[in-house]
């Protein structure tokens, strides 16, 4: 659905000679020339030279660290970008214009990596078949930032061809019990760099990003009851949002205001409520006696999808953000939950029971069509990447324990992202960066 659009955008961008300005230390504005209208761009990316381009290496650089920390993530990002294909270069052969022609590379990404003191410096130069420079950037950071450098460069390559960033710097929040208790963790989009964010020492679950990717809201049982908390992405600034209600689950930030939608309960009647992120202005949106759960905002903040048992089984509904104009959108199966809007607002992915197992279903809100896109085991809690190209979800296909997986929105390129302990409830950062 999205893929053809993306490719036509690529072709269009290149054909119309876009100007891209980038924000980094060394920043050379480049111009893409017309005539390279191939749908997939073939890119030659040899392993970096471990020295500055025009000088000998000031210090010995560890090849293994550069390969694992930088080159591996970079080439994987490029391979998964959807707009690049990596030209197959023979190893240890100098890259010449003839070689680039032979492997049909349209562009050549020349990389140099060296160290200056404690810092790694990465210089990337992109040139076309004529040798004309298309992009030149230099990145600088500690060893621990090598992967981030790779993702920044991959994003800059995407911007150069696509006029918008890739997904490579996005983060996935999730819950993990690897430390004994369920706590909130974060990882890079490729599953690397997994780190613990909350330290309640108590059941802490259901993380959800703020629209600026700076904070998360989640539920913790640290006080013996379930409460809503906000924490920043580095693990600081934790605060409890006191709604005065029970449950306080499935909390999610509005994309356009400081409202949080969540499930609150009074005397065993779970409903959808709104509250400001400072704990003020509690409002009730649903008023049935049945169970309402799992609110999720549309990207423009005007609608909220949620789950309700009002028809006898859990089904997906959409209402306006004021609680009005409720309509049911799922009719397939007898248990549907976890609805999430795609970033363009046209689709909703949700968990849907099919033949006794949960699967990820994607429904098109415009055409009303839906399709199942997961496979083995039980598959729940989908979340869209900020560019709408990917869906992360939890699956128990690897032996009855939850792990987080990632796949394209059409179900291809499945990749397991977590392995340590049990891991679930992925929530992909919202803002492209």
């Amino acid at each position, binding site marked *: 659905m999205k893929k053809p659009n993306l490719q036509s955008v690529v072709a269009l961008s290149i054909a119309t000679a876009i100007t891209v300005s980038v924000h980094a230390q060394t920043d050379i504005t480049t111009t893409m020339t017309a005539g390279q209208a191939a749908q997939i761009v073939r890119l030659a990316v040899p392993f970096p030279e471990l020295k500055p381009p025009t000088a000998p290496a000031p210090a010995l650089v560890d090849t293994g660290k550069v390969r694992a920390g930088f080159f591996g993530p970079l080439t994987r990002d490029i391979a998964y970008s959807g707009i690049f294909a990596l030209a197959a270069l023979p190893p240890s052969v100098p890259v010449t214009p003839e070689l680039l022609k032979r492997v049909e590379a349209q562009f050549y990404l020349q990389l140099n990596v060296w160290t200056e003191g404690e810092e790694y410096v990465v210089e990337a130069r992109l040139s076309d078949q004529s040798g004309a420079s298309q992009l030149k950037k230099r990145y600088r950071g500690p060893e621990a930032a090598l992967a981030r450098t790779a993702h920044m460069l991959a994003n800059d390559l995407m911007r150069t061809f696509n006029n918008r960033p890739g997904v490579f710097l996005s983060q996935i929040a999730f819950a993990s019990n690897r430390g004994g208790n*369920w706590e909130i963790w974060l990882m890079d989009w490729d599953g690397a760099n997994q780190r613990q964010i909350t330290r309640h020492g108590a*059941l802490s*679950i*259901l993380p959800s990003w703020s629209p600026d990717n700076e904070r998360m809201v989640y539920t913790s*049982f640290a006080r*013996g*009851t*379930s409460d809503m908390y906000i924490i920043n992405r580095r693990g600081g600034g934790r605060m409890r949002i006191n709604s005065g209600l*029970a*449950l306080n*689950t*499935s909390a999610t930030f509005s994309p356009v205001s400081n409202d949080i939608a969540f*499930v609150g*309960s009074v*005397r*065993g*009647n*779970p409903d959808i409520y709104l509250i400001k992120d400072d704990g003020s202005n509690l409002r009730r949106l649903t008023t049935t006696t049945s*169970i*309402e*759960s*799992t609110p999720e905002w549309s990207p423009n903040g005007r609608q909220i999808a949620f*789950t309700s*048992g009002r028809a006898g*089984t*859990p089904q997906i509904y959409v209402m306006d953000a004021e609680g009005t104009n409720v309509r049911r959108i799922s009719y397939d199966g007898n*248990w549907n*939950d*976890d609805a999430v809007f795609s970033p363009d607002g046209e689709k909703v992915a949700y*968990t849907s029971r099919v033949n006794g197992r*949960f699967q990820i279903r994607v429904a098109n809100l415009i055409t009303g069509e839906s399709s199942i896109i997961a496979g083995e085991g039980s598959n*729940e*809690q989908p979340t869209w990447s900020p560019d709408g190209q990917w869906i992360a979800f939890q699956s128990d296909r690897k032996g*009855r324990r939850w792990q987080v997986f990632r796949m394209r929105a059409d179900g291809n390129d499945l990749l397991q992202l977590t392995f340590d302990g049990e891991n*679930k*409830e992925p929530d992909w950062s919202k803002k492209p960066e």
Partner: protein
Amino acid sequence: MKKISQITFTSLALVLLILSPACRTKKQKVEPVVTPTETMAAPDIPPPPMPADTSVPEPKDFVEPEVTAETFPSDMEELNRYVQGKGYVRDAFYNYDEATLDDAAQAALTASANWLKGKEGAGYSLLVEGHCDERGTEQYNLALGDKRANSAKDYLVTLGVDAGRIRTVSYGEERPFEEGHDDSSWGQNRRAHLVLVR
């Protein structure tokens, strides 16, 4: 003990004398044989009534004193295991995707309410945890667990337990009692779990 203290020393001595041959054949503690002294006016005491037949009934073990006051564990975790084990406090179990109480669940809660209103239970508050089996989705089940916990709480209140003593929490399917993936485990995991708290 009480009986023994009521027996006068002399009559005890006499009885022992008479019974001593029989006693020796038993594995009971052998009491030292006491010989009556001169100060004891043995002839004034009427002879102990002899059993009609000469066979002496075999002595029985001492009866252990009966415990009339029940000792409850002071550790709350142990206490909860104890009252659940004794059936004083009983969990309510639910049908799949249901939060209504069937007869068995009502009986369990009635027993629990009676104990909570009695003199042993009156000092405790109650936490009612709502739990679900793994077959639903996590977020909806958190809400379902809340409904279950509150259905149990409401019933306890109608049976006369003060609502102010009862707190509820839903764990959804986050804390199963049984880890299995079969009907029996699922049945165990759909419950309102009653926990005594101070």
